[in-house]
């Protein structure tokens, strides 16, 4: 068997890998002494993949907003209607999530891991979707959407995305809207399923005090092999202008104080693998230097009562989009916004000191190492990085290789006034 092993002496972790004949990629990190086991079976398919050429067809299809998430809910159906029962009887805790880029099915267990793994693979690979159970789901998901509508943090975030992006589907709510999900039907769900749940588009990651051989045996036995071979799924993304959509979105809702998201739209996109992750790390280091609780800026505004400890900045980026967000709660969000604009107009050399860089880099190293205590942290991040062509086990080495000059270069290109937007949620009058 052609098993590949990656080892990091520094992390004291090993990663096992095998590509199955079906095209499915299987990864495993042993965690000796851990009580829990965790498996995550994910497809490289999220809410942004809403225009694509369905498998076996030629023309692109635009699907209703929220369909990837809807499909995630529907895969939990089975003819005997007792999938949750089966996991529960094994003592495993099953769940799933959909984000912009992936749909992931997962469970954690303390016993009966291999039986649960087999169950996970089987249910994800054997959809059972009926008109009846689709209707039922519409009511449940409508309540999920309503729940998010009442969440000021979620609303201010999506308004910020809407302000930044003109066309890119990252601006669309992951669950869709109560209206858009009404257009979802069986045929569309199966088209999405058949296209994106092909094993070549999927990865399985397992972590715990387990054996890779046994994992492979279970995968071999449980997986379906009669799939159409696909070379590459054609996903169509609209051409996203470098320009932002609109400068400001303000809304009122039931909340205690104004909250804001300020977004810097990234236009250096199109990267994957190490280059993408490096850009991510570099940008996050800059944001930490400028806005974290150890920055002069944070402490000045805190003392003035303009921000509280919810203030901070972070970057997130994938191949087709990226943005830095500076967020918080403030009596006067527009004043904070002005102060940030004033700050970024200063030359990089006077804002980003090498001492600060070294300190923040140390912090990033420590935080990553501490994150490795959690098997869920490892699993979820592994999948996220993997679908961007990067292995988690190389993360620390990449982080350590970042140099001071990297951040100066990136700063000057990313933090400008042209690509900035502001989203505010105000309390009701």
């Amino acid at each position: 068997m052609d098993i590949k092993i990656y080892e990091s002496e520094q992390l004291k972790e090993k990663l096992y890998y095998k590509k199955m004949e079906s095209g499915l990629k299987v990864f495993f990190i042993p965690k000796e002494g851990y009580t829990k086991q965790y498996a995550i079976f994910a497809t490289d398919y999220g809410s942004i993949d809403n225009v694509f050429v369905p498998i076996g067809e030629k023309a692109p299809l635009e699907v209703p907003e929220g369909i990837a998430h809807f499909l995630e809910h529907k895969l939990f159906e089975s003819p005997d209607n007792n999938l949750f029962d089966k996991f529960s009887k094994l003592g495993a805790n099953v769940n799933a999530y959909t984000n912009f880029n992936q749909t992931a099915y997962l469970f954690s267990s303390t016993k009966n891991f291999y039986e649960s793994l087999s169950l996970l693979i089987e249910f994800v690979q054997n959809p059972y979707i009926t008109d009846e159970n689709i209707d039922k789901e519409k009511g449940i998901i409508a309540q999920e959407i309503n729940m998010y509508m009442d969440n000021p943090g979620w609303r201010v975030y999506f308004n910020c995305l809407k302000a930044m992006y003109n066309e890119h589907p990252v601006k669309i709510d992951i669950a869709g809207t109560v209206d858009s999900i009404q257009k979802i039907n069986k045929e569309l769900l199966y088209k999405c399923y058949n296209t994106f749940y092909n094993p070549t588009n999927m990865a399985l990651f397992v972590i715990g005090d387990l054996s890779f051989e046994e994992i492979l045996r279970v995968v071999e036995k449980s997986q379906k092999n009669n799939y159409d071979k696909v070379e590459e799924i054609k996903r169509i993304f609209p051409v996203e202008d470098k320009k932002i959509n609109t400068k400001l979105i303000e809304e009122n809702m039931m909340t205690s104080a104004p909250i804001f998201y300020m977004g810097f739209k990234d236009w250096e996109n199109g990267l994957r693998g190490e280059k993408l992750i490096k850009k991510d790390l570099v940008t996050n280091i800059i944001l930490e230097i400028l806005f974290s609780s150890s920055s002069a800026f944070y402490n000045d505004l805190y003392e003035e009562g303009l921000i509280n400890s919810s203030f901070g900045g972070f970057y997130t980026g994938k191949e087709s989009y990226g943005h830095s967000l500076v967020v918080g709660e403030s009596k006067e969000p527009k004043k904070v916004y002005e102060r940030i604009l004033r700050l970024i107009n200063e030359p990089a050399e006077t804002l980003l000191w090498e001492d600060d860089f070294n300190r923040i880099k140390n912090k990033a190293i420590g935080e990553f190492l501490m994150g490795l205590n959690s098997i869920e942290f490892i699993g979820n991040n592994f999948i996220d990085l993997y679908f961007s062509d990067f292995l988690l086990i190389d993360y620390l080495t990449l982080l350590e290789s970042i140099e001071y000059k990297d951040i100066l270069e990136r700063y000057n290109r990313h933090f400008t006034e042209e690509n900035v937007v502001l989203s505010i949620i105000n309390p009701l009058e």
Partner: protein
Amino acid sequence: MNLKSERINIGNGIHLNLVKTDKFKSNLLSFYFLRPLTKEEVTKNALLPLVLKRGTDEYKTNLEIQRKLEENYGADLSVAINKRGERHVLRFTVETVNGEYIGNKEYIYDVFSLLKSIIFNPLLEDGYFKKSYVDQEKENLKRRIESRINDKRSYALDRCIEEMCKNERFSIYPLGNIEDLASIDKNILYSHYKDIIKTSPIEIFYVGDYDDKMVDYMKEMAVIEREDIITIPREQIISGAKTKNMVYDDLDVNQGKLVLGYRTGIPYEDKLYNGLLVGSDILGGGPNSKLFKNVREKESLAYYVSSTIFKYKSIMLVDGGIEFENFEKTIDIVKDQIEEMQKGNFTMDDIDISKKSIKSSTESIKDSIFLISEYFFSQILSNDNRSLEEVLEDIDRVSKQDIIEAMSTLTLDTIYFMRNTKVLNK
């Protein structure tokens, strides 16, 4: 791995708890201060950690503290204020990367000394806390209390408890009251601080690898001046409905939040308590529960619906997010499901599934450095000397009869509903 905590008395009302493990890539040190949950001191208790975090004798500003933490590989400092039953708990924690991953085993002392400085050597001006820090943190605390409303689900749960237990200390919100803030100043807060340091029971937890030198250091950290140590009374347990009311909040929201508050009357020391835990899990624990199946899957009324036991106070809350007009329908289903359980209409499979689920999440504690310390801390709070293995065995021993008996104690006390009459009347 069998979890063990060694508990050493190192001073008047001060205990050091050591959990030795090399499983993690970090170590954790926590100081817990125990207080009674009372209207008189709740707001001062809540304000205190915020002020202490602002500056110490050695590190005078937040900026200096944060930079020190970052230099030390992003050591994570957190303070928390929680209620555990009718106790108010102040926690100060640092978590640091294990020295061997960064080639420096000594730096941990730097981080410990910073924690010590935050708790025991605050920045003083003319013998009291610095005025501007106190004033700013009063404002921040005020805003935090106001922001309760932003998380509608937990707000609804809190509101139900407030109404249900309005004559009991358990109704006190752990971050305090805005009205109290005006009367608190740097002098009052400082004398309260002195009182807390001198009179509170203190539990110190360390989880990670250690040697004698480190233990000595930790003992040294807690050498402080002490007076008579307070005793905190155990919670009042009430059986049967007390307030019997229906409470509505009219807010501008999209989703209704329903909470049903039940009295169980079963103290955690009681043998029947485990039956209650399993019963509540069968009712509304996970995706296999009665409520999930009937309220969500069968009737598609809700995205979330669940039931939770509040250990120290012996109450159970059922909560769900629903359309406004489904208020009565949902209540009927919940009542029906509880009745069914009281009649014994649940299977051995249901019991087995819930036991597995409870045991699995209890056992999972072993994989989290923070949960290990929290687990042993809660054992101390409830005077529970059982090992984790014994706790699991006791869950296993729960019989169907235990569950029926436990569920039969449930009395509906308060129904809380967050609604939007503007939408309802449309």
